[in-house]
């Protein structure tokens, strides 16, 4: 099945499920939708942990298995059934379906930051403030903490973060005498120089990826999505968005970006042989490069994200997420205990060992983590760049309460701009129009 057809099917399911979930919660009173920043103590959680029991945990992260094993060793009276119910959209579709159906949801689920508002605002997640988890605020970077807070409630604890940096093929840059770009203008120049020197090489690959586009708008200072209760404002032509498209249009229109789709076998191949020279992506990328692009060993390096004005470094988050407790859970306190252990306890260690990039300040600040020299990156202490980026994320970003749906239709709208190599702004305007219409149909009051 072609990816577009599948993603459309997924979109249909998500749309249907979200529609029904929203109508369900609006008819069932406002109780679940307007969390008032519940406060409480962790006593109930500690008690549940002592009593033990059985919970189900849905996650596709590679570290989940090791974490569950370590947890059960520490707490033998708790049984955690780890289920890999699918990756990305498959996982969310199933989660949304189970929520809609009223049964079959796990106690704890992995939820990425971009998906969290959708589940939180439909009243599907437990406000962990009721267990006193708001006390953990200072343990996390502001951007990740902001991502799990929705409408005043706390709907999960952050596990990983993805502050963006510029990964580049240093060997290739050196070969063609290209210096690491500090501004996006220099980046475009580097793209031209590289492609002129060797037409088989491209500065990066981009065929239209919603996650990347929103992160880039974020870095440019854009805040296209604002949600206040059920009223949503969308402005994909704000200053930040325009700043990004002005730069990126040049790359797309001059065909300086490769059209190899991300995460395909051809993409991995291109990262290894230098066809794709740079990636502006999240701090979790080193683990992926190391395990899946052996051909790039010794060639890649990391630099801070280019900026628009060449001034103080600013960046955005790309990817990352945490774990949430589902309202459907029959053992919410025990589930919360597991989430606390995962992201604010001994669970962080197996996560770091599997190459994860943390959201916890203590781990980001530890010298053992920061100063580790990476053999894959030719001995560069990559975490110094990446942990610095974690503190340079532009504050105040938020995703749409139906971001999963939004991302699934990105290619039908903005994707066309990429394919035709025309400007991205008309594509973004189309996307905005589709999102306003959809949001209004779903019971939000959307202005755009």
């Amino acid at each position, binding site marked *: *099945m072609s990816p577009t057809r599948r993603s459309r*099917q997924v979109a*249909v*399911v998500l749309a*249907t*499920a979200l529609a029904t979930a929203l109508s369900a919660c609006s008819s069932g009173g406002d109780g679940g939708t307007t969390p008032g920043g519940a406060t409480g103590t962790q006593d109930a959680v500690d008690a549940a942990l002592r009593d033990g029991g059985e919970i189900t945990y*849905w996650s*596709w*992260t*590679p*570290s989940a298995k090791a974490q569950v094993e370590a947890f059960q060793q520490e707490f033998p009276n708790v049984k955690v059934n780890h*289920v*890999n*119910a*699918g*990756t*990305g959209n*498959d996982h969310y*579709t*199933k989660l949304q*379906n*189970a929520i*809609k*159906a*009223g*049964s*079959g949801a796990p106690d704890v689920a992995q939820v990425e930051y971009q998906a969290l508002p959708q589940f939180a605002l439909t009243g599907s997640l437990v406000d962990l403030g009721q267990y006193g988890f708001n006390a953990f605020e200072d343990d996390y970077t502001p951007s990740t903490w902001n991502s799990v807070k929705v409408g005043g409630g706390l709907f999960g604890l952050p596990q*990983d973060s*993805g502050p963006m940096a510029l990964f580049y093929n240093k060997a290739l840059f050196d070969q063609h005498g290209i210096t690491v770009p500090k501004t996006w203008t220099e980046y475009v120049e580097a793209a031209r120089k590289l492609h002129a020197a060797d037409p088989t090489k491209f500065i990066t690959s981009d065929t239209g990826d919603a996650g990347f586009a929103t992160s880039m708008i974020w870095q440019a200072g854009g805040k296209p999505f604002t949600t206040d209760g059920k009223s949503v404002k969308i402005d994909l032509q704000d200053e930040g968005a325009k700043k990004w498209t002005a730069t990126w249009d040049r790359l797309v229109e001059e065909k300086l970006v490769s059209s190899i789709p*991300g*995460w*395909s*076998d051809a993409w*991995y*191949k291109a990262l*290894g*042989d230098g066809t794709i020279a740079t990636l502006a992506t*999240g701090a*979790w990328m080193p*683990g*992926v490069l190391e*395990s*899946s692009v*052996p*051909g790039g060993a010794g060639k890649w390096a990391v630099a801070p994200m280019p900026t628009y004005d060449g001034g103080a470094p600013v960046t955005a988050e790309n*990817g*990352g*997420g945490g774990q949430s407790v589902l309202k459907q859970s029959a053992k919410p306190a025990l589930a919360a205990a597991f989430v606390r252990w995962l992201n604010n306890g001994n669970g962080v260690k197996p996560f770091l060992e*599997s*190459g*994860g990039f943390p959201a916890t300040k203590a781990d980001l600040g530890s010298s053992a983590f920061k100063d580790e020299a990476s053999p894959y990156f030719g001995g560069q202490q990559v975490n110094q760049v990446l942990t610095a980026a974690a503190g340079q994320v532009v504050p105040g970003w938020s995703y749409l309460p139906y971001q999963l749906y939004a991302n699934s239709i990105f290619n039908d709208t903005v994707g066309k701009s990429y394919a035709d190599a025309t400007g991205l702004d008309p594509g973004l305007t189309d996307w905005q129009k589709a999102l306003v219409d959809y949001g209004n149909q779903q019971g939000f009051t959307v202005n755009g």
Partner: protein
Amino acid sequence: MAVYLVYTLVPLAWLLISATKTQQDLLSTSGLAFGGTFALFDNIGQTFTHDNGIFLRWLGNTLLYVVVGAGGATALATAAGYGLAKYRFRGRRAVFAVLLGAIAIPGTALAVPTFLMFSNLGLTNTPWAIIIPSLVSPFGLYLVWTYTTEAVPDELLEAARIDGAGELRIFFTVTLRLLAPGVVTVALFAVVSTWNNYFLPLIMLSEPDWYPLTVGLNQWSAQASGVGAQPIYHLVITGSVVTIVPLVIAFLLLQRFWQSGLTAGSVKQ
């Protein structure tokens, strides 16, 4: 013709050649050339052992869904199609209209309502959620109906009745033999659609232990993207080859029946 051959055979050739490569070679060599090492047997071994041998479990699940689901669908379609063609009863035309309507609705559109229904019955995340919907094959029923009108003469049935045979006996000893090519055709369609069924199991099942091959392989493929990506394309490809082998065998074995079935009724005898 040549274009058609290239169009159908090149992807197959790519698949077969790729199955002989290691993950490394897959990413570093051209698609239609062999890699440095011939790793087919290694890959097959790894496919069956990766993640505690879950592939074998998926293969078993698929077989279960096909045998029970497609087998049941064929049996039901045969009995119902025959009944609809040869017996006169009240509401027959209505049944037929519903049937034609049912053919026109794509399974994908029914998946979500089916999910909600099964969820109310507490059947999601169990094999029944795949088997029960697979039992219904409106198109198969329609094929049997057409085939029966063409291949089973009313006179023959009347002769059997005059000889004193009961309706069940007529069905099993007379009709089924005449219908064999049609039934095989229906069975093939049902087997292929159940074997390839993707969307229904995708939304019905959350427990990987009950996945059929299609959903399982996609899960392996999906591991290649995002945070903590672990691409195992070589196993996905080898798994795909292993997945199509039984279908190829089924087609080769049943081809003879199938061909005679398709031409039935095409000329006046």
